[in-house]
């Protein structure tokens, strides 16, 4: 598994897309017509490189054990591998310390955990939480649930007509009661990256905590939590070439220390009596029960996989393909792209004139093209930008190519032909 051992510091593997594609066994799939798969649903989940799949097999075959307790060799190896991911991830997003990484089963769980423990500690009745209209439901509903639980109020940050998040709107939104602002680093619908740093700065000037949803950004944008100065940040392994069932939140150590535990169970406590307990230290305070051990270990391998490439080269390749998609799609008379005021990252969403988005997604299946239609878990966004039946979305990963875009264009033309008859 040479491809999995690259780390942040050493010489980087050249970005050769053909050899990258070879790393992903699923990409060799062909349908009954012999057409190879065009995976353009990366925002939903990415494909997995062989080294990640092998890491799971390796764990279950060679050192399957629970973590943090067993003295036998497997228990130690499992614990080291599991904690190794914490270090890798901390490194990857430039956190100060491994203890600032808390494992969850995914970004959604991470956001729910944060809403609950931040809410418990910091929210008072009539406090306000700002959430943008850009957000995924996973970054909406957990905060909404705090309304009923703690009497806070959600304030929506309205998008501009062109899909922009205008930081100057914050001046109206931020009040002395604004405890928290939650927004995504990369929109899973528009491919838009907001001015993250500027927004965080303005929020902090108001004493407002900031939670960044990096579920989409993790695999596509270089993240530096120190530079961003965000208070919390979440992500999912399966959207960054890792296994399903693993994710994390990052929190500034000093803030994590102030938060109560989340789930109750093994590991998160020090002492337990029948009606009381004392919590463990950070990070274990927030990790109860047997974690998704294999998935977390696989997550670490996925990060290693990503880090063997030069991030600039990787971004440049993805940019090239996304820009090519934009160009080719804009050139089709029957396509209307969703707005994106900045450069699109990883995602291109659009409508096909006269075709329902869901029919488009079904029609291109026949050409072994996987993309997605609908609200993409962003109903407020769809309402705001007036897409009552949602959008068709093509989303890209490091293995996608211009040829994939060409295949998509052919398939879309065919779809329109079928409907014209």
């Amino acid at each position, binding site marked *: 598994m040479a491809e999995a051992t690259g780390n942040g510091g050493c010489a980087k593997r050249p970005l050769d897309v053909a050899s990258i594609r070879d790393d992903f066994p699923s990409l060799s799939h062909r349908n009954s017509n012999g057409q190879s798969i065009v995976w353009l649903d990366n925002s939903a989940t990415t494909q997995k490189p062989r080294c990640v799949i092998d890491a799971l097999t390796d764990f279950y075959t060679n050192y399957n054990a629970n973590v943090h307790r067993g003295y036998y060799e497997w228990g130690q190896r499992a614990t080291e591998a599991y904690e190794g991911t914490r270090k890798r991830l901390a490194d990857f997003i430039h956190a100060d310390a491994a203890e600032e990484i808390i494992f969850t089963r995914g970004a959604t769980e991470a956001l729910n955990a944060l809403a609950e423990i931040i809410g418990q500690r910091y929210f008072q009745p009539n406090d306000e939480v700002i959430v943008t209209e850009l957000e995924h439901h996973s970054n909406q509903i957990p905060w909404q649930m705090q309304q009923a639980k703690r009497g806070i109020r959600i304030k929506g940050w309205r998008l501009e007509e062109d899909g922009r998040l205008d930081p100057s709107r914050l001046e109206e939104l931020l009040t002395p009661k604004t405890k928290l602002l939650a927004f995504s680093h990369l929109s899973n619908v528009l491919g838009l990256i907001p001015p993250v740093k500027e927004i965080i700065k303005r929020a902090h000037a108001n004493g407002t905590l900031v939670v960044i949803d990096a579920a989409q950004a993790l695999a596509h944008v270089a993240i530096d939590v120190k530079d961003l100065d965000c208070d919390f940040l979440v992500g999912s392994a399966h959207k960054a070439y890792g296994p399903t069932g693993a994710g994390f939140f990052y929190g500034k150590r000093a803030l994590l220390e102030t938060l109560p535990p989340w789930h109750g169970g093994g590991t998160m406590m020090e002492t337990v009596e029948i009606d009381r307990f004392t919590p463990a230290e950070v990070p274990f305070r927030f990790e109860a029960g047997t974690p998704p051990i294999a998935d977390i270990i696989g997550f670490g391998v996925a990060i290693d996989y990503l880090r063997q490439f030069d991030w600039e080269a990787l971004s440049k390749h993805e940019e090239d393909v996304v820009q090519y998609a934009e160009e080719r799609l804009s050139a089709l008379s029957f396509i209307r792209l969703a707005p994106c005021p900045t450069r699109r990252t990883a995602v291109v969403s659009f409508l096909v004139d006269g*075709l*329902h988005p*869901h*029919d488009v997604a*079904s029609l291109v299946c026949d050409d072994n093209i996987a993309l997605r239609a609908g609200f993409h878990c962003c109903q407020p966004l769809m309402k705001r930008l007036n897409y*009552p039946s949602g959008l068709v979305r093509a989303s890209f990963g490091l293995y996608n190519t211009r040829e994939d875009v060409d295949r998509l264009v052919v398939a879309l033309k065919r779809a329109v032909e*079928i*409907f014209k008859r």
Partner: protein
Amino acid sequence: MYREVLLAHNEQPHHFYALSQPTHAAHGHNPLCGDEITVHLRIESDRIKEISFTGQGCAICKASASLMTLRLEGLSVTDAEKNAQGILKWLNDATAEQPDNLGELEALLGVRKFPMRIKCATLAWHAFLKALNQPAISDTNKESSASCGCCGNGSTPNGKHLNDGCGCGS
């Protein structure tokens, strides 16, 4: 999946309008896509005198609704109900036998292989059955009920409310 028949019915759906004097009506909502169909009925002497639908949906949904109106209009309520139940069973249950005399409805055969799209094909049929089971729209509240009629008190059994359409959550 997209047979000729379906494409034709999608392009020019039959009975795609709101009845002016419905006796029964009901919404169908597909939570997977947000699409909504309303089925309108005029039932006289236990017979489906007139049937129509409004709303938005994908090609599968609209074609299925259009085919349904052709299939059910003129039938007795009992026959129409049996018909609808038979079609729903066939669409939902991969092991179910094909109903007799499918006619043009056979075009929906392809949809059965795509579980994620079956709700599209069944949406109108479910709405039809729901409409049948509504209390008849009385003359006095026809106006408002024409746009809904699917529930009495504005809330569903599990206490949920929708914030659009008629507000009944169905």
